[in-house]
């Protein structure tokens, strides 16, 4: 540095030393920092030293300094989760001890079950059944009052546990509608006739005079019932109501008769714990179609 630079540059107007920085003739005054600011700064410095010691702060090979408190966000998360689990435990014990009937009549247990069931439903069931359990073509709407395999809490519980058409589950709901067209069980004319009859059932216009009536009685009634109102033992749907899992158009019905339908649902017995399945059963039951 030259001697010239070392000389203090005093601003004429204010008599205050400048920093020597100049922009187009404008000079920066070297005013001292406000004292309160300096104090705050010093306190924060002290605080940061304390922080370096107490908390994990410095990256070192293989991780970071641990800090004397041993704090990590993972630990904090685990602790809060533990806290939640502990809070749930009180309910969970009562929930485990109670049967469905008790739970359905106890407001506290009931809301515990539906809250847990709602969360589990979003995680596990919503993929197929939709977040509002509304379903879609091929995936049943769980809000309505039409049940293929029964709508009591116990029925729903069994369905969730063992699923539908699960190969390796002995207790699963198993049935298979024959593919009447594809497997050549019925001639084309007969298929058309029986589809017309089912369309008639749909519209409430079916009569015994229809050609399809006899074919229905011979081929379909064993599962769907002579009145076509379905049989739950076989998961056979009611063909006289307003709910059509695979569509209510003539073409949909034709497709169902020709190729058959066989939806699948996984068994959740080994994937979810008993309490979650019970909560799910209660949640689905209260969506609106639950049977007594």
């Amino acid at each position, binding site marked *: 540095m030259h001697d010239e630079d070392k000389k203090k540059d005093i601003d004429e107007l204010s*008599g205050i030393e400048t920093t020597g920085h100049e922009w187009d003739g404008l000079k920066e005054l070297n*005013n001292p920092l406000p004292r309160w600011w300096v104090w705050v700064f010093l306190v924060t410095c002290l605080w940061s030293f304390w922080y370096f010691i107490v908390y994990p702060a410095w990256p070192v090979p293989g991780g970071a300094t641990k800090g004397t408190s041993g704090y990590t966000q993972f630990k904090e998360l685990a602790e809060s989760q533990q806290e939640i689990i502990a809070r749930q435990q009180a309910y969970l014990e009562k929930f485990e001890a109670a049967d469905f009937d008790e739970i*359905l*009549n106890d407001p506290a247990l009931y809301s515990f079950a539906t809250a847990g069931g709602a969360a589990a439903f979003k995680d596990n069931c919503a993929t197929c059944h939709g977040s*509002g359990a509304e379903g879609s073509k091929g995936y049943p709407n769980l*809000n*309505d*009052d039409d049940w293929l395999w029964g709508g009591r809490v116990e029925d729903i519980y069994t369905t969730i546990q063992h699923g539908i058409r699960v190969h390796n589950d002995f207790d699963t709901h198993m049935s298979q509608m024959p593919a009447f067209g594809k497997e050549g069980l019925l001639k084309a004319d007969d298929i058309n006739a029986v589809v017309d009859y089912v369309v008639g059932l749909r519209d409430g216009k079916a009569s015994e005079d229809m050609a399809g009536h006899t074919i229905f009685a011979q081929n379909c009634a064993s599962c769907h019932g002579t009145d076509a109102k379905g049989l739950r033992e076989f998961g056979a749907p009611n063909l006289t109501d*307003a709910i059509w899992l695979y569509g209510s158009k003539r073409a949909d019905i034709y497709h169902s008769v020709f190729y058959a339908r066989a939806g699948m649902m996984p068994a959740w017995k080994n994937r979810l714990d008993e309490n979650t399945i019970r909560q799910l059963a209660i949640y689905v039951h209260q969506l609106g179609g639950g049977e007594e």
Partner: protein
Amino acid sequence: MSTETPEGDIQLFQKQERIYPKRVAGVYRNLKWLAMIICLAIYYFVPFLRWDRGPSAPDQAVLIDLERGRAYWFWIEIWPQEVYILTGILILAAIALFFVTSLFGRVWCGYLCFQTVWTDLFIWVERIVQGDRNKRKKLREGPWTKEKFTKLAITHAIWLVIAWCTAGSFVLYFNDAPTLVRSFFNFDVSPVVLGFVCSLTFMTYLMAGFAREQVCTYMCPYARFQSAMFDQDTLIIGYDEKRGEPRGKHKKGADWTGLGDCIDCTACVQVCPMGIDIREGLQMECIACGLCIDACDDVMDKVGLPRGLIRYDTERRLEEKNHDLPISKYRLLRPRSFYYMAIIAIVGGIMLYSLLNRSELEMNILHDRNPLFVRLSNGDIRNGYDLKILNKTHNDHIYALQVKGLDGAIIEMVGAGDLDEMVLGVGADSVGQFKIFVHAPVEPQKPIPIEFVLQETQTGVSDRYESMFISERPH
């Protein structure tokens, strides 16, 4: 603000001059004492007032129950939905402040503001322990002696006790007062309460002990915008220049020729808690407390001149006197007085109306979003709703729900146990939540407007809520 010191340096910040207000006696000082006693009494004792509301609600007359979301003020009870009443109170308070300021100047600042009241209280403590103005000044500016240390320690200790009581009283408005006081003595208060008390104690100590007039001059926004409420007819503290000038020392018995009535004793400056000289005219620091009037009147009595050299007067009248014009009368009723009164009347009227017509029953209905509707096996359409019933009374009630505007509609309930939409029980002072389904034989069509009607089965008190019945996907 930059000021130039006698040496010619520019100072970017004004240095705080410590103010040692001198003791004074007189009409306005007495008014101030009275205002202080009333304000402090209200503040410290109101939390202990009881008001019987039955077993379902607390019996504290004034209470803000944050945990349960209720505010109680004697016979008035506010739920979170009615927070607009709080807004109304704030509007009323603001307009009332404007109104009073336009008529009488900053009397709020001078007599009633908590900054003024607590500063006054702290100065009083300071004087009791350390003596009056000169003694305090000497003590403070003198060397650190045992006496100085003791006196300052006692002062600060008393300040802290007052600050602690102030903070403690504040939290009493948010908790059951006797219980909380008891738990304070048992050292058994929650960290939240303790945190509030400690920080408020510190703030009171800081604001009333140290910041004092700095708060009014630099921090307070009301002080600034009150100036906008002033006009020529607003009462201000005025120094009668015509009568006072030329000021000068006057020996007893000497001739007054060539001298004004002001004897330049600076009594008015010594008593001023803001540290200003009122003889320089109206200043933004002036809080219109009138202590300089008391001080000057006292001196005028002593020198045998009429009182009122410094007095509450209007700018217009002071100007007229200065210019030897005929002095007009004080005008209390001016257009702006009427504007403010009209606003106060309107806002007050609206609030009074809403309080008198406050419903004790409220129903809220929320239509399910997912699914919007459900087709049932018999072809009916079903819609789901969340129902909330707000029972604001202090008794349990049973309500009956009906739906109107939908042919063949049937209400169903979902929930624990047997529920009946005609027998919906809601406990005193609480919210009942229910899940309901409505189904009806409806062909898919545009949303049908429907109305839910809720009626108390004994008293017949009812509420309505308009909603929709949806039967097809929105296009």
